[in-house]
């Protein structure tokens, strides 16, 4: 079930009403309802993979208990590695097996041997990368004695499969989510309204920004050899907005939905396109994944303790692994590698924590220096996104080559202007500008719409919300999947 589907528009109020009006007296019943609703939500996509989700949950629940009960370090290690290997084994089979088989065959072919790799015709279970990471963080935390194992299987299952975060995150931590699941929840009017507001903003990001930009970004990327440099640049920028609207829109809907049930999820985005350097960008983009890699990979590898070169090595490792996490394709690995290269100067010079606060705090406009830094960071990000979006490395290189060579050709400008005039609905560009403006105004909040308009007169504020709602309804047609479902 997609967040932007009519099915979800029926599903959510039903679960909400049952949760707060019918079984609000019993925490046990509320958690059971959440579990049932989450499994139903997942089954709407493909019920067969419920068994995989259930098995993964059971495995981590059991190994968690075993780690805590183990009498010696050897046994603790055994249960930890059992959980890690089975979890990563599933991920490997479903997500990476074909990639490794084909890459091996290609590598062998280079030295003159021909092998026909045995590939699997498997569907990637939606959300597998996300719930696997939930489970892993849980058992690792138990191993390091940061948390005690959860004894109640229903509560633990809700932690893994809570429907707002099940298929595309945020990647939660047991230390953050489990205590909320175990604690009695009371209805909070202000939080519920805030949740609805965040859902509305998320839907707008997905339907109004991402899906509209996608139409033209797809057109340009799929036929990049037909277009001039400036048009390709336009396509790359549109993709940057598409992926941001798509993924952060999903996260906003997830956070807003969870808040309706009295649960706060980890923040996943913090206005990344207003970052002044790449290090700041990565503190603001897909925060739950970045912090996961920091806590469970970067720090165990030694983090920044072993000196500058250790830090450089570890940074490269986490960016490459992060790229690979996104999918079994060299494009993602190069995307990760490119980001690692971008961030290197600040790692070496020790300036990676120079911009920790929001840009232009308390001001309406950024300084010229800040604006320049934002635009430079955005440009670097857009170039990296080309690898993320392209079908393969050759296409990405071809795209960048054509874009950079044609950037200063006059005929290209004419073509882009023609395209803007004839093919791209100018309304889309107006919407993108409007979106950037609201994001800028709300950049110091949890999400853009959190405070924007709150001080306006009620009729004006209502009119503003109706306008947003109208845009969502008017532009929602075909239900487009979220990009991160494929990861």
């Amino acid at each position, binding site marked *: 079930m997609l967040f932007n*589907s*009519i*099915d979800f*528009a*029926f599903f959510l109020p039903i679960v909400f009403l049952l949760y*707060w*009006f019918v079984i609000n007296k019993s925490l046990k019943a509320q958690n059971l309802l959440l579990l049932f609703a989450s499994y139903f939500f997942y089954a709407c996509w493909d019920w067969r993979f419920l068994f995989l989700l259930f098995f993964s949950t059971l495995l981590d629940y059991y190994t968690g208990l075993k780690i805590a009960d183990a009498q010696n370090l050897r046994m603790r290690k055994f249960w930890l590695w059992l959980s890690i290997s089975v979890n990563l084994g599933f991920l490997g089979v479903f997500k990476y097996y074909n990639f490794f088989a084909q890459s091996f065959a290609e590598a062998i072919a280079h030295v003159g041997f021909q092998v026909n790799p045995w590939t699997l015709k498997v569907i990637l279970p939606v959300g597998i990368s996300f719930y696997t990471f939930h489970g892993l963080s849980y058992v690792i935390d138990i191993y390091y004695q940061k948390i005690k194992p959860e004894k109640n299987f229903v509560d633990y299952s809700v932690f893994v499969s809570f429907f707002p975060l099940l298929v595309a995150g945020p990647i939660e931590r047991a230390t953050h989510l489990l205590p909320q699941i175990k604690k009695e929840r009371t*209805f*909070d*009017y202000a939080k*519920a*309204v805030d949740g*609805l507001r965040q859902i509305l903003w998320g839907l707008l990001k997905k339907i109004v920004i991402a899906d509209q930009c996608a139409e033209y970004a797809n057109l340009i990327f799929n036929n990049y050899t037909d277009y001039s440099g400036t048009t390709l640049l336009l396509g790359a920028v549109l993709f940057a907005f598409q992926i941001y609207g798509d993924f952060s829109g999903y996260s906003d809907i997830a956070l807003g939905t969870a808040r309706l049930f009295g649960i706060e999820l980890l923040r996943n985005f913090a206005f990344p396109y207003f970052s002044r350097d790449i290090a700041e960008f990565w503190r603001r983009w897909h925060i739950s994944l970045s912090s996961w890699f920091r806590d469970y990979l970067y720090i165990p590898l030694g983090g920044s303790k072993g000196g500058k070169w250790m830090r450089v090595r570890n940074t490269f490792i986490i960016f490459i692994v992060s790229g690979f996490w996104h999918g079994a394709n060299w494009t993602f690995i190069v995307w990760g590698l490119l980001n690692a290269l971008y961030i290197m100067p600040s790692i070496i010079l020790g300036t990676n924590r120079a911009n920790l606060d929001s840009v232009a705090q308390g001001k309406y406009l950024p300084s010229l220096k800040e604006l320049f830094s934002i635009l430079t960071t955005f440009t670097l990000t857009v170039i990296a996104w080309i690898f993320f979006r392209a079908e393969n490395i050759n296409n990405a290189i071809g795209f960048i080559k054509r874009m950079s060579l044609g950037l200063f050709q006059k005929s290209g400008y004419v073509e882009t202007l023609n395209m803007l005039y004839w093919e791209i609905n100018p309304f889309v560009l107006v919407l993108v500008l409007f979106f950037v403006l609201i994001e800028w105004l709300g950049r110091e909040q949890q999400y853009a719409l959190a405070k924007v308009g709150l001080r306006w007169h009620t009729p004006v504020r*209502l009119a503003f*919300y*109706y306008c947003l*709602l109208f845009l969502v*309804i*008017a*532009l*929602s*047609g*075909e*239900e487009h999947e979220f990009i991160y479902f494929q990861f």
Partner: protein
Amino acid sequence: MMSRFIIRLLSFLLPVLLMGFLSELALRKIPNDYSYKKDYLDKNSGNIKLLFLGNSHSYYDLDPQYFSVPAFSAAYISQSLFFDYRILTKYDGRWDRLETIVVTATYAGLFNNLESSVEAWRTKNYIIYYGFLSSNKVKDYFEIFSNNYEFNKLRLKSYYLDNVSPVTCSELGWGTEYKSAIKNDLIDAGNVAATRHSANADVAHFSINKLVINDMIKFAADRNINVVLLTTPAYHAYTDNINKHQMQLTISMLEEMDAINENVIYVNSLNDKDFIENDFYDADHLNEIGAKKLSLKLDSIINNWK
């Protein structure tokens, strides 16, 4: 607190819900080919002697007015065999005079189904207008959710403001839009259609559709009704480019059904040389000239068979 939240939320959403409700009602009030055919069958199923079922190949290629017995076309664009069977069984007990049903069994139809095709949005018409509850998607039960806002707005404007009726079929259910005055590039259309039909072909659908045809044949046999399985004519640009293996699979299955069942005859007009360029609207559909030719031909085959 909770009640306050619900009341305020509903008050905020009320105009939107009201608009949605009114739009749904207004859209359902607009007559269309599905509602027309359903109404016709409700009133006249007892008088029909010859019934056409199937997809666009039947809808455009067979004109009931050229048959010597009272005929009606319940076929429609992208109509799957599953819905053909549902229509047939919906009026069970009301086919008082039905003697023959014609089902188009084409390459495109047998390897596809409506729900998984790009035309899946048409499913809602069978739910809303025929009353077949056959989808687990909420949007298939509503007009407003099945098409986008812009398209629904156009439909409302066109019917209520411009007074244009969206019913395009003839009184007897035949598709009137494929006119000979419109000239299409048959070579190009043939390549495109054959590529599309081959690319979307799924053997799993073929097995299911085979079972559905068998059910139809059994349904008909139990009621002394004859079944004509028909493969409609296609232009060479289409037949030259389709998957030969799948075509052979289709033909041999239909021939086998003809051989096994006494109440079945298979008519294969795919490469019928009587149909010339002028008879085609596009590479796999006939225009009104071709439809007349095929209808008269089929009428004579049915009469001779009897």
